[in-house]
């Protein structure tokens, strides 16, 4: 019981964020013609905030499966790095381990990787309840958004800007947290160049390839000073 209470208290900030962001996702999805069943399915099966916002766009635009796979690969590539830094912590996680790995979002990551739990709190059950509660908040928010979207008493034109705003916020936070701004500038520069060269409908995949290539080529110049130990320190990858 103490474990559930502790987990609940720690997830309160995430609850606020997930309910609101989930709500925004549900409204956006509904505005594109996909109702609460779709919101429920996506929040249960995909459960990745920024990717679900992007997915609304992919659904609305009738993207190809390959384009969707590549987009997911790029947007969610950071999960590889969360996983790498959680391998040790989740090594003895018990029967819930597959779910813990599936439910490792940015926010859940920030809760389970920060410090140790107090006495009387079971570590493995704490991980499980944090993961489960966070996903329940997200599901509740997104389904409520899809249901409410239809009944909103005002013109929702322009509400899709919430996705732009979300990414701008994450970018701003990353910019402040990072000592080296060149990776962000590489991303911006390559994307704008590809936009100019390939146009709005075709720039994304060249940009993904170009960014990975540019960062690989620039590795020697960008490699941070002292070797090693970067995946765990701080969290410049904060996002949703």
């Amino acid at each position: 019981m103490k474990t559930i209470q502790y987990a609940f208290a720690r997830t309160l900030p995430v609850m606020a964020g997930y309910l609101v962001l989930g709500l925004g996702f549900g409204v956006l999805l509904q505005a594109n013609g996909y109702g609460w069943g779709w919101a429920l399915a996506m929040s249960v099966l995909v459960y990745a905030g920024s990717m679900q916002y992007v997915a609304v766009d992919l659904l609305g635009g009738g993207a190809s499966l390959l384009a969707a796979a590549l987009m997911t690969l790029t947007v969610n590539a950071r999960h590889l790095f969360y996983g790498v830094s959680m391998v040790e912590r989740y090594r003895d996680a018990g029967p819930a381990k597959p779910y813990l790995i599936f439910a490792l979002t940015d926010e859940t990551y920030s809760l389970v990787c920060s410090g140790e739990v107090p006495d009387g709190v079971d570590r493995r059950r704490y991980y499980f309840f944090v993961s489960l509660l966070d996903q329940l908040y997200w599901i509740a928010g997104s389904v409520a958004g899809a249901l409410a979207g239809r009944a909103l008493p005002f013109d929702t034109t322009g509400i899709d800007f919430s996705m732009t705003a979300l990414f701008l916020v994450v970018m701003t936070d990353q910019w402040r947290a990072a000592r080296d701004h060149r990776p962000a500038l590489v991303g911006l520069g390559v994307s704008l160049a590809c936009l100019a060269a390939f146009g709005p409908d075709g720039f994304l995949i060249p940009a993904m390839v170009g960014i990975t290539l540019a960062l690989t080529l620039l590795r020697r110049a960008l490699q941070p000073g002292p070797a090693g130990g970067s995946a765990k320190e701080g969290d410049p990858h904060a996002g949703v």
Partner: protein
Amino acid sequence: MPAFDVHAAALVAVIAAVTALLRFLPFAVFGGGRPTPRFVLYLAQVLPCAIMAMLVVYCLRGADVLGPTHALPELLAGGAVVALQWRCKNTLLSIAAGTALYMVLVQAVFV
């Protein structure tokens, strides 16, 4: 009742599968206790910032700088989001205020 959108369901399935793959892969590959390759650690550090910048460009790809509004709604609302986040560090406030401003601009100002 419209017909079930099979392509949309396939898109959701692909997105779910690739997301799960990315989450499980590190545990499958590095679960054995081998050290993480340096190149992976390097990408872990530099890729997130670059990708987020790309996503912002992706969101704004339709903004028409030469069009009738000169992308002013995007510029003003986007600027407000960054300024608010820089000062207040309140994610929800920045998103809500920026989106509301954008909605007012496209519905009532630049019509």
